[in-house]
């Protein structure tokens, strides 16, 4: 069936477009442009680096693209850019989005399925966008008797907390949004908030299953927080610092995984529990308590919590890389100069790009390792979980602490790196 109207003439169609373009040109030249210049006359123009951002600069930048370099250089060194875009939230959210896609395909291959396939030309690569649009367009259902302000606020706080943790991760030399001297303590402090948020949300939902789920999240916190922190202690002893960037720099000779493999194992198991992933997905155990503390979520509230969860996954994978796998350290594979014999101002720094590359690669490897148990393990029971956390992991963590202390007092390794 034709979709064109009955009286359709192509000439009329073209004429209407030309008529539209004519009026747009008239209005822009006579009204909009004078208005912009009038406003610009009264408003003080912002500075970017050494240059004033005028509309004329935009035209000159179109002619000579090298003029953009100082402005870009200025922008990427602002705190806002660091916190919001590159080492911070947007980068983490991008990795989170990639993780969701990779997880679905990876799990599907493990289970002899295809996974997302139809959205997007290649292997369902746009599935996440489709899912996001669906979640946005869905109605948010709030159960009767729910604590409405808390119910709305908790998912947003959840994402904000995850974003706060991303600000502490050093991605490349000098590339960290907030280079705290107590970085590792700050990260543990932030991660300790998540079970409390789960409990808060479950309380706000006013429902039985979320309540049980929230309590389970709290049990998980109690069981795994201590081995989690203890497993990072050997790294603090070895590097002699609580600063994450300094921890990475002190691994320039060898990765700390070589002397603290047991700690790395404890850290890995504890991060699975911290992330509520299989086999530690008790707070979301579907067949027992419907969806746990996420039972009453719908629409974008669910979407936000999922985003926060996957950003948290990135944070823990990145933290593992920083503590045990040498962070951004890796062989230099990028050339020192991108364009040979270019003498102007530069924003390309080979060391930084190399660091980002290795960091991202290692983080993705670690993310795959965190995703793996979902395909091969069932869920464990809460008493086994507490037993594992209290008896086994704490003991293992202490064993590695003693090994590291022996190495340091034996004079084999000097604290504060290997000087």
């Amino acid at each position, binding site marked *: 069936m034709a979709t064109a109207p009955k009286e359709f003439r192509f000439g009329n169609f073209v004429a209407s477009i030309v008529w539209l373009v004519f009026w747009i040109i008239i209005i822009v030249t006579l009204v909009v442009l004078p208005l912009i210049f009038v406003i610009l006359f009264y408003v003080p123009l912002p500075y970017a680096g050494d240059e004033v951002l005028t509309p004329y600069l935009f035209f000159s930048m179109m002619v000579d693209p090298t003029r953009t370099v100082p402005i870009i250089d200025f922008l990427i060194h602002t705190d806002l850019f660091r916190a919001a875009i590159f080492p911070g939230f947007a980068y983490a959210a991008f990795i989170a989005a990639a993780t969701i896609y990779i997880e679905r395909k990876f799990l599907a291959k493990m289970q002899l399925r295809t996974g997302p396939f139809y959205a997007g030309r290649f292997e369902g690569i746009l599935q996440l966008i489709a899912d996001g649009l669906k979640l946005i367009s869905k109605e948010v259902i709030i159960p009767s008797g729910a604590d409405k302000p808390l119910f709305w606020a908790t998912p947003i706080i959840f994402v904000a907390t995850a974003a706060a943790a991303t600000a502490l991760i050093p991605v490349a030399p000098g590339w960290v949004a907030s280079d705290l001297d107590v970085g590792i303590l700050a990260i543990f402090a932030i991660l300790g908030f998540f079970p409390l948020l789960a409990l808060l949300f479950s309380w706000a939902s006013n429902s039985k299953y979320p309540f049980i789920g929230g309590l389970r999240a709290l049990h998980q916190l109690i069981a795994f927080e201590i081995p989690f922190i203890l497993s990072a202690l050997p790294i603090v002893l070895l590097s002699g610092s609580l600063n994450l960037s300094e921890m990475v720099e002190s691994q320039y000779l060898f990765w700390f995984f070589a002397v603290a493999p047991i700690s790395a194992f404890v850290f890995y198991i504890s991060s699975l529990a911290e992330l509520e992933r299989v086999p530690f997905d008790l707070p979301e155990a*579907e067949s027992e*308590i419907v969806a746990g503390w996420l039972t009453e979520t719908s629409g974008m509230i669910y979407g936000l919590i999922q985003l926060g969860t996957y950003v948290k996954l990135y944070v823990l994978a990145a933290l593992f890389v920083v503590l045990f796998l040498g962070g951004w350290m890796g062989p230099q594979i990028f050339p020192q100069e991108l364009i040979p014999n270019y003498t102007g101002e530069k924003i390309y720094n080979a060391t930084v790009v190399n660091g980002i590359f290795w960091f991202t690669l290692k983080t993705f490897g670690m993310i795959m390792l965190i995703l793996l148990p979902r395909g091969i393990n069932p*869920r464990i*029971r809460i008493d086994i979980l507490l037993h594992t956390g209290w008896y086994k992991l704490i003991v293992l963590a202490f064993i590695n602490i003693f090994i590291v202390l022996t190495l340091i007092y034996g004079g084999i390794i000097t604290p504060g790196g290997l000087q």
Partner: protein
Amino acid sequence: MSKEYDREFETKFQETTRLGLEVVKESEEDRLMTLSVGPQHPGSGHFRFTIKVDGDYIVYCDPDPGYVHRGEEKMSEYRNFIQNIPHLERPVIHDSTNITYSYSLAVEELLGIEVPRRGQFIRAIASELNRQVYTLYWLAIYGIFLGHSTMFMWPAGDRELFIDLLTALSGARVTHAYNIPGGVRNDAPNGFKEKCLQYVKYFEKRLVEYEDIFYNNPLFRQRTENVGILTKEDAINLGVTGSVLRASGIPYDIRKVEPYDVYDEIDFKVQYMKTCDSFARAYVPFLDMRESCNIIKQLLDKMPDSGEVRLKLQSNPKGQPGESYKRVESGRGALGYYIVSDGSPKPYRVKISVGSFRNILALPHLLIGSKLGDMPSIYWALNYWPVEADR
């Protein structure tokens, strides 16, 4: 609560009320939280049971079946013996050959006819294949109940092998209506024997992988071993059947105890375990699947290559007045039909005795005193199919 405590509490209560404060006494009931599991709960099926939890322990359980009652028994009284087949298989569409098998056997006894030999073999093969389909479906759900998503996808995918074979036999994917009084509806197609053998051999390799990823998984063992103990005496007293009974250490299989059709010619072992726990109940169906592969191979080997598969009956067969009771070993245990005929083309009374309903009687016995986290593993290991129990 002791009496002393009560007296102490009352004196305190009077003091506080004199001060103008309101005190609400905590009763034993206030500690409990009532949870309704089903029929919309992801861990229930078309079934509901109410549980009360004290902390993490279940202290009360009340099964409430009947959500999918369709009146199959009454419907059977208004249709003749042949017409009954398509609706009688509805309660367990995943095991539809077995549920019509015992019906056909009972009707054949009433009509006094005997099925041709090739027909008996094809019947037995179809019922073994269909038991595999059911057990795989059951295992898939057991996997996802324990949070093991791979164990959901693998059996659900491998189920297609047997569905393919049954489609080749009967022409339908799940509701086959293949067994009819007098034999099977049609003969097996050319090349069925080779195809079946090939599929079964592939499936035996897959069973090894199932064992590696699921049954030998330490986390799975931790969760199911020594959970939900159903002792031998309790199993007999509660009247459970099928894999649940065999997991309690009683080697009872209808195929061995009351061999029907060609099963007395087949050499097979009754698989049973003596640990009586949830793990045994999960593992016995798996062992049954492995044994079933052997049975299928033997049946294919001994099957006559040609011959009639169906005894020609008139379209509206009538038998002598009388009654008959026949049962077969279905995926969930003994599945029997008691049919009373008054000599007319329609049965006077049909009573279906299913394994599911007998197994679910053990649910409160096992759940009370166990942990909430064990609820899915205990419940689904009972090999219960809600729709079949409701009939």
